């Protein structure tokens, strides 16, 4: 808090105005201290805001997950691992976790696979830029808007059923977003539509960074395009694929908008994913501590994925170099 008050004081700004940055060699102790405080002034808004609005809540959330915080009373008795054992014993948590894994896997494999195909095959085609722009277009729309649009695409009297009717000639009445066996696939398709453009662009970035020489050389030696792709392009593209995949996984576990908006009429909406389940337990049922534990599980998953990415990144870089 002292930093905040200093940020506005006349004296310190005067110091900043007067102070010239000396060459580092000849820095004396007083000047070094001044440098430190000037730096603190520059850092203060960012550090204060992120500490109090982002980091403190995370710590509070972790603490909360070990308490017995009840709705209304807010009694914060320490409860040890009770919330976590409840998690493991609750079939809904199992359902939500299973769905989350299915969702994350599908929302990773399909966009990356299709994105790679687009990135590789659109190159050099006529209308290349137009095609790329069209594929990227959904990414520009707000996710909530996308959810609403596709909610009506999948509606019983919606676009998809009408389209199938027009093609098949028979009446179709599938509630895509109301049935256990279709809802997840339907939302994944929407997610694919929304995100494949971004994945494609990121992979194109990776492709553009690949040196031409080894490819030229391989072609001279008579390698087929497929051999070139598998033996040269793919290994060089690996680091990019890795980053894109890890980002997809993290985004997948946190995904909320589409699942929430499109799951509106589905009785199992709450267990569509861990992120939705956490929102339900906390903000609908008032099981705050339990919901905090779900959030911690999500946080732990994210940390593991981030760590794994860093580790694999080092290995992939080693492989490349």
């Amino acid at each position: 808090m002292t930093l905040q008050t200093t940020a506005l004081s006349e004296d310190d700004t005067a110091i900043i105005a007067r102070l010239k940055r000396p060459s580092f060699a000849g820095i004396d102790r007083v000047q070094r201290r001044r440098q430190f405080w000037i730096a603190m002034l520059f850092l203060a808004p960012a550090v204060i805001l992120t500490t109090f609005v982002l980091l403190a809540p995370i710590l509070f959330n972790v603490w909360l997950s070990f308490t017995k915080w009840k709705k209304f009373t807010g009694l914060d008795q320490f409860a040890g691992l009770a919330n976590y054992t409840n998690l493991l014993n609750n079939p809904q948590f199992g359902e939500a976790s299973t769905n989350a894994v299915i969702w994350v896997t599908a929302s990773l494999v399909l966009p990356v696979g299709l994105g790679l195909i687009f990135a590789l095959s659109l190159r050099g085609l006529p209308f290349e830029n137009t095609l790329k722009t069209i594929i990227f277009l959904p990414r520009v729309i707000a996710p909530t808007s996308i959810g609403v649009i596709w909610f009506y695409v999948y509606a019983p009297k919606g676009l998809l059923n009408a389209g199938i009717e027009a093609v098949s000639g028979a009446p179709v009445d599938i509630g895509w977003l109301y049935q256990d066996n279709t809802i997840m696939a339907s939302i994944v398709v929407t997610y694919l539509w929304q995100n494949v453009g971004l994945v494609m662009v990121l992979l194109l970035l990776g492709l553009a960074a690949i040196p031409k020489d080894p490819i030229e050389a391989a072609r001279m030696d008579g390698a087929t395009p497929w051999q070139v792709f598998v033996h040269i392009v793919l290994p060089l593209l690996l680091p990019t694929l890795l980053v894109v995949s890890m980002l997809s996984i993290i985004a997948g576990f946190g995904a909320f908008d589409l699942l929430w908006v499109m799951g509106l009429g589905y009785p199992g909406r709450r267990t569509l994913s861990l992120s939705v389940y956490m929102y339900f337990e906390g903000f609908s049922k008032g099981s705050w501590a339990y919901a905090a534990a779900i959030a911690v599980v999500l946080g732990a998953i994210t940390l593991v994925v981030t760590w794994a990415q860093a580790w694999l990144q080092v290995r992939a870089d080693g492989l490349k170099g």
Partner: protein
Amino acid sequence: MKTLLSRAIFGACLGAMSAITAIADEVILTHDKAFYSTFLQAVGDVCGFKEQAYTPPEQFKAFVQSSIASGQTPEMFTWWSGATFRDEMVATGQIAQLDDLWAELIANGSFTAASADPFTVDGHKYALPLAFNKWVMFYNPTLFAKAGITGEPKTWDEMMADADTLKAAGITPFVATNQDGWRGFIWFEEIMIRLSPEKYLGLFDGTTSYSDPVVHQAFQMWSDMYAKGYFSDPRSNQEVVDFAGGGGAMNLMGDWAVGLLTQAGMEVGKTLDAFVVPNVSADTPAGMIYEASPLMISVEAAKNPAVMDAMRCWASDEGATVWANTSGLFMGNLNAPAPNAIVPKINKFSIDNNAALYSRWWEGVPADLQGDSVAAFASFMLNPTMEQADKVIAQVTGLHDAYWAEHK
């Protein structure tokens, strides 16, 4: 730069402070019924409070729960009656007793003593009624006439026969949807009280298990009605429009829906009327589902005369009249005009038949189980086979048996 920055920070602080003080000045009624906002404000203009809506209900609940948890109970707010009112809300100790106010209201004859029952916990009264609603079968007389039906059904079998007639005339008998995710219990509770009110009430305290044969029978009847094509598409998310637009002849709903239905173009007496669903067996006593919405104040706010005045005014003839005229809702004040022709008709039925009033399923069951159970009912409506019913029954039985094993 410095001045710009400090001005920005100063401005932000000032803005935040003025926002807080603006709220502190007036008596605020916090609620989750955004569709009543203008009606509530009409009463507020007379009674000196300002309404403030939080939607959807989930966020409102979260807001109230966290406010109470952090010791800042809203001064005047709405809630739900039943288990959550008794076991959760009043149990916080933050809700002011209104025994004196009720004594006044009963003494001057504007309310019956019984109308305080839903808000009484351990002999003390903790709320005024925002509305006191009964659940009825709305029907469209024009569509009934089109199918050649005259008069309202007096027995369950007559109602089913009417449904057959309507179906034969190409009219969907009942509009029933899962809109907003909470409507799954409506038909379940209605069939239950028509079959066995005792078993129904037993669901609330664990004396009836959901594995009881009566529950199974209720699902069987419900499933049969679906099989005969009596119901509209449960996946619609515009129930009011469906019914008002002639998408079905009947709609089971609280009498609070009159306002919504007339807004959507229906006309009471011409295209809109209502009857109380008849019992399956003639031996069962007359009864119907009620829904009472409490209006409460915090212990802290009860010390503020402005808040007490607003509450007194709410229940007064003047307040109740404005409320009835704007919202079309009946709060229980006998001196207020009937908000529409349907409310007195249902009240008359209630008095003539000495009808028992049963709490809605939503308010009756433990609050922690509401959401999960109603989602299970909704899954039945989407797949109304007995196979699914057995799954739903097993699921709900599991939830409730586990709860009652822990809370006996």
